[in-house]
């Protein structure tokens, strides 16, 4: 690694000021599982590394109407958190299928989002849950929907002095039954070829009602950013969640994907798998609905 100056501030304001002073040549350090690899490869050569390790409150998980998820919450913290396991099980399940135990000790939710990899596993489920990002910078605080957070591969809306402080995730019935599935070459330590997250909210009605009030379908690793399949969502919204509508929505989601050929997979296969993963997860939600009728 190229030499750099290390900072370990106690407050976000100070961290943001140090980043601003370095004018694009500073990097915030959370878990380091992406940053250090890029620095070792010489891809990134920051003059300042600003550790967020000593800033209080960044690893907080609190549910108070909405979920507040600190950006520095680690993947292992998500897996162990009773709040996450009970009310946002998709986030615990997603974390558990990422990397291996020792990387999950370090890797953080915020780091996974801020690195803005198109294949990042945390992005689709958090977008499906309609999360908002709370960002702090020299000019103050702003809140951005995660739908608007990603700009391109490796690029988010964060300015060079800005730091993601936390995510706010609404809690409602769809949080409990959101899901995320991905395909990889091996079950651990791999990067998704394709990932799909779905979240469905049903209309409040009598037992067995399967009318879908709202649906969010988010595709990972098949576009420059995580992508909402909005036309597929529209097919489900207000309509019954039956086999025909699910198959139609899944087909349209595959059309909306914009995959590329690369070392991990072909574009053709990715598109086929968007359809399969979307259909499979919507069918699971439908079957669960029929079974427990909640």
């Amino acid at each position: 690694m190229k030499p750099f100056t290390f900072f370990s501030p106690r407050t976000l304001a100070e961290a943001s000021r140090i980043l601003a002073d370095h004018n694009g040549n500073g990097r915030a350090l959370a878990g380091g599982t992406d940053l250090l690899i890029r620095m070792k490869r010489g891809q990134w050569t920051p003059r300042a590394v600003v550790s967020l390790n000593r800033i209080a409150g960044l690893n907080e998980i609190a549910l108070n109407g909405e979920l507040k998820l600190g950006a520095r919450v680690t993947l292992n913290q998500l897996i162990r958190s009773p709040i996450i396991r009970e009310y946002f099980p998709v986030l615990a399940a997603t974390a558990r299928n990422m990397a291996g135990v020792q990387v999950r000790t370090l890797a953080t939710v915020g780091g996974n989002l801020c690195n803005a990899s198109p294949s990042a596993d945390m992005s689709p489920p958090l977008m499906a849950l309609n999360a908002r990002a709370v960002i702090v910078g020299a000019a103050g605080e702003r809140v951005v929907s995660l739908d608007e957070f990603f700009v391109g591969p490796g690029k988010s809306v964060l300015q060079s002095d800005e730091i993601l402080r936390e995510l706010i995730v609404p809690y409602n019935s769809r949080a409990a039954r959101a899901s995320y599935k991905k395909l990889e070459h091996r079950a651990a330590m791999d990067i998704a070829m394709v990932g799909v997250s779905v979240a469905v909210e049903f209309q409040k009605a009598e037992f067995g009602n399967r009318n879908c009030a709202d649906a969010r379908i988010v595709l990972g690793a098949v576009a420059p950013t995580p992508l909402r399949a909005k036309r597929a969502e529209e097919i489900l919204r207000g309509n019954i969640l039956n086999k025909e509508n699910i198959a139609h929505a899944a087909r349209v989601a595959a059309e909306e994907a914009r995959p590329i050929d690369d070392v991990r997979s072909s574009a053709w296969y990715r598109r086929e798998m968007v359809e399969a993963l979307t259909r499979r997860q919507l069918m699971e939600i439908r079957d669960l609905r029929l079974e427990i009728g909640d």
Partner: protein
Amino acid sequence: MQQLYISLTVNGDVHELNIEPRRTLMEILREDLELHGTHEGCGSGDCGACTVLLDNEPVPSCLVLAADADGRQVVTVEGLVQNGEPHAVQKAIVTHGGTQCGYCTPGIVISSVALLNENPHPNELEAREAIAGNLCRCTGYQKIVDAIVAVGRE
């Protein structure tokens, strides 16, 4: 060049060190403290050979800046020996034939200890999950998994 003064507790001993910010925890352990049991495999967190316990949690020490570990507790494979006796996991890996070339073994031992600290009686699936981040090119894993499960049954 910036020099940082840090304090690390490694296997119970406090070490005060002057370091360059770019040095990783793995480099400090191997080069400064001469604890060569922690191996460097890939250097990018993929292989698990450099796994150590940091505040009782397993981490790839090649991806931790030593500066960021200031004030924290580290346990390496050398720290598992008590009164000259190897840890139960080390003994079980030997008796089950769970080591061949030995390069991955310290990392696997640390990952196994981390699992057993949290879950003293793991089943086979739990043992496999715990070492999913440790690559072994020799054993095919089965004997390692058998060893971990056997420790939980003792």
